[in-house]
C-alpha cells in the first residue's frame, strides 16, 4: 500500500503524473520536468517534500545524543533556528543517511530521507541514551519553495518581511510554521514545515501566485546541477564521506567528540582511494546511473546522471579513482565516448560555472 501526502488530490488537480517513490505516491512532473526545472532557476517552483521524515529530539541530553550519532557537530548550532547538514554513519564509517538538523527552542529537529525512515528510527532506538527523547512529526507537511523569486513570493503572500533577513541554513518560526532558508536546488528558497491541515491552502495559494508546481524529476535535475548527493544513489552504506564529497561535513574537532564511525574516518581521511566528482558529456545522449567510466587513473562508475536543462547536455556525478581528472570516457549503449571530469557544482545561482 503506498502512502499519500496531504497534497495528493491537489497534485492530481494540478495535472501531476503520480508515481510510486519510496512507498509514497508522488508527483513526477506536472506536464514537463524541463519547464519546471527552468521555472525554479528563473522564478520560483514549489515541491511537496512531505514524504520526508521529520524527527523532533529533545531532553537534557538531546545535544550529546545527536553529537554521538551525527558526524557533523550539532554543538556548532548556537542559536535557535540555526541548521547544519551532515551524515549518520555506522561503526565502519559507512553512510546510513544524510540529514539536515535545526536547533529549535525545544531541542533539535532532524529531517531525514523518506527511503531511510525505518532504518533511521531503528538506529535511534539501537543507540538510545537516557535523557534524550524523540518523536516523528507525522502531523507536519513539508513544502519547498525554491528559486530567485521564492522568498519574495513568500514575503508577499504571507506578509513576512523578516524572512528576507533570515540567513541561509537558518529557520524562522512563524506561529505553527517553521520556515528554513534551505533547499536542495542550489537556488535561494525555503522549506516550510507546517501542520498537514494547512498544506493544501499554502500549495494552492502559491500556485495562484504564479509559483510553478514542480515534481520529483525536476528536483533530481536541479540537485544534480547544484552538485548535491542523493542518498541511495550517490552514496550508500558501502561508502564513506571522503569518497562521497561530504568529507567537509565531518567535524573531527573537537578531538574528544566520540561519534559513531569516527575511528575508521581518522585513517580514511588520509588514505581514501576514490572520490565523487562531476562529469560532463556533450555528445548526443544521456549518461545514467551505473554507466562505466574510464579515466587516466583507472575505472569508475556513474552514480547519478541526467540531462541538464541549464547546460543543455548530460551531466553526472561519478565515483572514480582519487587522482582522476581531465578527459575521460563513458560507456553508453556499448560505445565508449569522450567526456570530461569537472568539479561540481555545475550551476550556481542559475549560472553555469563549469566550462
Amino acid at each position, binding site marked *: 500500500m503506498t502512502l499519500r501526502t496531504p497534497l495528493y488530490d491537489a497534485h492530481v488537480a494540478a495535472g501531476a503524473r503520480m508515481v510510486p517513490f519510496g512507498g509514497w505516491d508522488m508527483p513526477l*512532473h506536472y506536464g*514537463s*520536468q*524541463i519547464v519546471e526545472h527552468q521555472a525554479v532557476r528563473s522564478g520560483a517552483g514549489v515541491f511537496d517534500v512531505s514524504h520526508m521524515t521529520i524527527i523532533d529530539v529533545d531532553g537534557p541530553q538531546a545535544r550529546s545524543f545527536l553529537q554521538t550519532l551525527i558526524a557533523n557537530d550539532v554543538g556548532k548550532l548556537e542559536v535557535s533556528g540555526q541548521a547544519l547538514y551532515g551524515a549518520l554513519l555506522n561503526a565502519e564509517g559507512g553512510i546510513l543517511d544524510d540529514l539536515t538538523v535545526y536547533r529549535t527552542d525545544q531541542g533539535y529537529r532532524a529531517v531525514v530521507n523518506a527511503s531511510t525512515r525505518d532504518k533511521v528510527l531503528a538506529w535511534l532506538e539501537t543507540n538510545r541514551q537516557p535523557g534524550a527523547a524523540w518523536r516523528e512529526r507525522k502531523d507536519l507537511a513539508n513544502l519547498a519553495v525554491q528559486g530567485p523569486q521564492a522568498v519574495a513570493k513568500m514575503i508577499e503572500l504571507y506578509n513576512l518581511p523578516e524572512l528576507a533577513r533570515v540567513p541561509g541554513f537558518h529557520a524562522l518560526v512563524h506561529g505553527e510554521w517553521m520556515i528554513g532558508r534551505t533547499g536542495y536546488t542550489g537556488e535561494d528558497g525555503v522549506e516550510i514545515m507546517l501542520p498537514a491541515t494547512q498544506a493544501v491552502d499554502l500549495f494552492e495559494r502559491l500556485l495562484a501566485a504564479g509559483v510553478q508546481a514542480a515534481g520529483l*524529476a525536476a528536483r533530481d*535535475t536541479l540537485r544534480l546541477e547544484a552538485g548535491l548527493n542523493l542518498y541511495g544513489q550517490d552514496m550508500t552504506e558501502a561508502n564513506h564521506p571522503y569518497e562521497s564529497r561530504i568529507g567537509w561535513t565531518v567535524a573531527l574537532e573537537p578531538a574528544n567528540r566520540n561519534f559513531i564511525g569516527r575511528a575508521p574516518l581518522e585513517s580514511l581521511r588520509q588514505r581514501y582511494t576514490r572520490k565523487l566528482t562531476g562529469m560532463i558529456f556533450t555528445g*548526443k*545522449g*544521456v549518461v545514467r546511473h551505473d554507466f562505466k567510466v574510464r579515466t587516466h587513473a583507472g575505472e569508475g562508475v556513474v552514480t547519478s546522471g*541526467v*540531462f541538464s536543462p541549464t547546460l543543455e547536455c548530460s551531466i553526472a556525478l561519478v565515483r572514480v579513482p582519487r587522482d582522476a581528472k581531465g578527459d575521460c570516457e563513458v560507456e553508453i*549503449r556499448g560505445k565508449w565516448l569522450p567526456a570530461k571530469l569537472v568539479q561540481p557544482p555545475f550551476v550556481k545561482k542559475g549560472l553555469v560555472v563549469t566550462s
Partner: protein
Amino acid sequence: MSDIPRDLKYAASHEWSRLEADGTVTVGITDHAQEALGDVVYVELPEVGTHFDAQGEIAVVESVKAASDIYSPVSGKVIAINDVLEDSPETVNQDPYGDGWFFRLLPDDPSDLGGLLDADGYAEVCANDEH
C-alpha cells in the same frame, strides 16, 4: 487518454505511419509514446539512402527518462529525415503527429502497410499498456 488519429496506421511498438499521396510513408511516434517518454532531448535519425527491413532498429529517441529504439514499420529506404528534431527535439512532445515526424520511407511494397494496426487496434495496445 492519448490522441490516436484514425487516418494513420500503427505498430505495437508505438510508431505511427502515414501513406502519402506520392507512395512514401512518413513515420513518427505516437502521443501515447511521447507522453510515456517525457521530455525528449535527443533524436538519432537514420542516414538518407539507407535500407531497413521491417522491425529493424532505425532510430533512437532519448528522453530525460530513457533511451528507446524506434523500429521501421515496413521494409524500405529512407528518403528524408526531419532536421528540425536536431535542434528542437521537444517538437516530438509538442506535435507528435505533425512537425514531430521522424523520417520518410520509400516502402519496398506499399501493401505492407496493411499489416499494421488501425486506430482501434492501437487503442487496445495502449489500454493493455496502462497498469
